[in-house]
């Protein structure tokens, strides 16, 4: 592809993506696309930590869930007793403010995890991040006064902005698409900058990175905060789209799904999580449509994943780049 054709191809892709709800007359498929889009945003955020800064956060779903819960709670309003005589009451707030709170809460927990990652690296960081997600899940299950526990937070209001309610699926689709594109642009800016290079340097060779003056802690924390905020945004979108949040949003399987999307697509590439996300997000539906027996669907899913990882260990996007030359 020549340099001149690139913007045209990008524009054609965008046009195609934007036009989907106009001709896709299938509410269920649109729903699948919306949920896949939300997961792609989360996978892109994981890619920043895993693919660029080189830190495997196996508790990434914690940021997603914290974003979902914080946003849902602020939009619904809540009352908790923090001390026997002291209760905190929050009245229901507009959804945009709630989502902002969700992003901030996720970002703050990202800061916390980033600081920890400075102390523990490698396998230890993986364990700490898994434990973090598990602890947050247990809080969501057991702090019934705040989270309703397994009864879930219900009737979460849909996104509303400038008097427009994102109630129907096409509106939600465009909202998710817009935020996904914004996330992509933000990550691209970061990656092609001094900050992104510092993250890569940290992943590649930490001793050398510090020797040329890179404050690795600072950039690790930056990666974690941006990544967590983005995952929290995805979580908030999820909460106001499906309009119910229960502690299952913290399940380990969701982190695994994000990792699969990033690894198969190509970690450390911009398009990787998008490609991996589309394939492994839409695959279960495709298999169902192909009328494969339900018990065989996940076997096919797993087999395909193993094949991709085995034959394209760098991921699909780097493999395609190599083929092109």
């Amino acid at each position, binding site marked *: 592809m020549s340099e001149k054709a690139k913007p045209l191809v990008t524009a054609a892709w965008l046009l195609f993506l934007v036009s989907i709800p106009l001709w896709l007359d299938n509410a269920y498929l649109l729903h699948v696309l919306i949920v896949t889009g939300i997961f792609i945003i989360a996978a892109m955020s994981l890619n920043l930590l895993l693919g660029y800064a080189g830190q495997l956060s196996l508790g990434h779903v914690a940021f997603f869930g914290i974003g979902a819960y914080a946003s849902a709670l602020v939009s619904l309003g809540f009352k908790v007793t923090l001390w026997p005589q002291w209760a905190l009451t929050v009245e229901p707030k507009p959804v945009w403010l709630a989502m902002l709170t969700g992003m901030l809460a996720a970002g703050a927990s990202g800061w916390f995890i980033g600081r920890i990652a400075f102390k523990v690296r490698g396998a230890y960081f993986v364990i700490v991040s898994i434990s973090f997600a598990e602890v947050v899940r247990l809080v969501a299950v057991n702090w019934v006064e705040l989270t309703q526990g397994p009864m879930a937070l219900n009737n979460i209001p849909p996104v509303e902005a400038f008097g427009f309610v994102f109630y129907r699926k096409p509106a939600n689709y465009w909202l998710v698409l817009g935020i996904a594109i914004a996330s992509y642009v933000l990550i691209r800016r*970061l990656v092609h*900058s*001094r900050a992104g*290079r510092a993250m890569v340097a940290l992943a590649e060779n930490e001793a050398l990175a510090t*020797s040329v003056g890179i*404050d690795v802690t600072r950039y690790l924390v930056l990666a974690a905060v941006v990544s967590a905020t983005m995952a929290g945004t995805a979580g908030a979108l999820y909460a106001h789209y499906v309009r119910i949040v229960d502690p299952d949003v913290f399940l380990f399987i969701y982190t695994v799904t994000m990792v699969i999307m990033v690894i198969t697509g190509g970690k450390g590439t911009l398009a990787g999580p998008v490609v991996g996300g589309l394939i492994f997000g839409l695959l279960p539906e495709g298999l169902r449509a192909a009328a494969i027996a339900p018990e065989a669907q996940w076997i096919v899913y797993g087999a395909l994943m193993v094949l991709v990882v085995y034959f394209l260990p760098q991921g699909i996007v780097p493999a395609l780049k190599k083929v092109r030359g």
Partner: protein
Amino acid sequence: MIPILQVRNLSVRFGGLTAIADMTMDVREGEVLSLIGPNGAGKTTAFNAITGYLAPTSGGIAFRGKSLKGMRTDAIALLGLVRTFQKTSVFGGRSALDNVLIGLHLRARQTPLAILLGFPYVEREERELIEEARKILGFVGLGKREKEQASALPYGDQRLLEVAIALAAQPKLLMLDEPVSGMNPSETAGFMAKLAEIRKLGITVLLVEHDMKMVMGVSDRVVCLSQGRIIADGTPAEIQRDPEVIRAYLGERFRRVVGGNA
């Protein structure tokens, strides 16, 4: 004039093992000072202590009059003290150009917020940085290899790339840890010429090296360490005649071969 680097009574102990004992030396602005000595003498340990990779047990280090006590490596680099590593150390998965761009970290002014918000100056600065990185790659002689992945470069070129990365960090004092180990004689000769050019840029050089032809050829002064102690300090000619240095490190053969025509 104050020496650019002052090491005072520096000691480093690992448990019961004394790696460096009471080391005192100065590096003067603009000179090339070589640190020689047998393996295990404490040369690399001294490098690590000076650049903040490990905390000295006792003693002090000052760079341009400022104490480095308790400072992290990246903060020390910011002051202008940059080192390379004994074992080849590049950002292997990235292109040669990217390697030098990473080295230019301290020269860039862009902040995380400006980057995320896409301020126009960020892109302008990126273009300038790429120009600068190409210049540095050209300087070390890797101009034609900018697109190649660092780990795929021949060994000698990787060593040059390391120096390019260090130069990108704008050192005032460049510390090279065995830069020509593994290079063939013609590559070593090329590197010596490069070192003379680096010197002309006003960069002071502290060198650890086993290649005596190079050490004697490029150094203004030589310090010899043995078993953690400085046993000699002088010009290359003085060091070659020093009986202590010959006994501990150079060997009798050296006196006959090189020392004879010195």
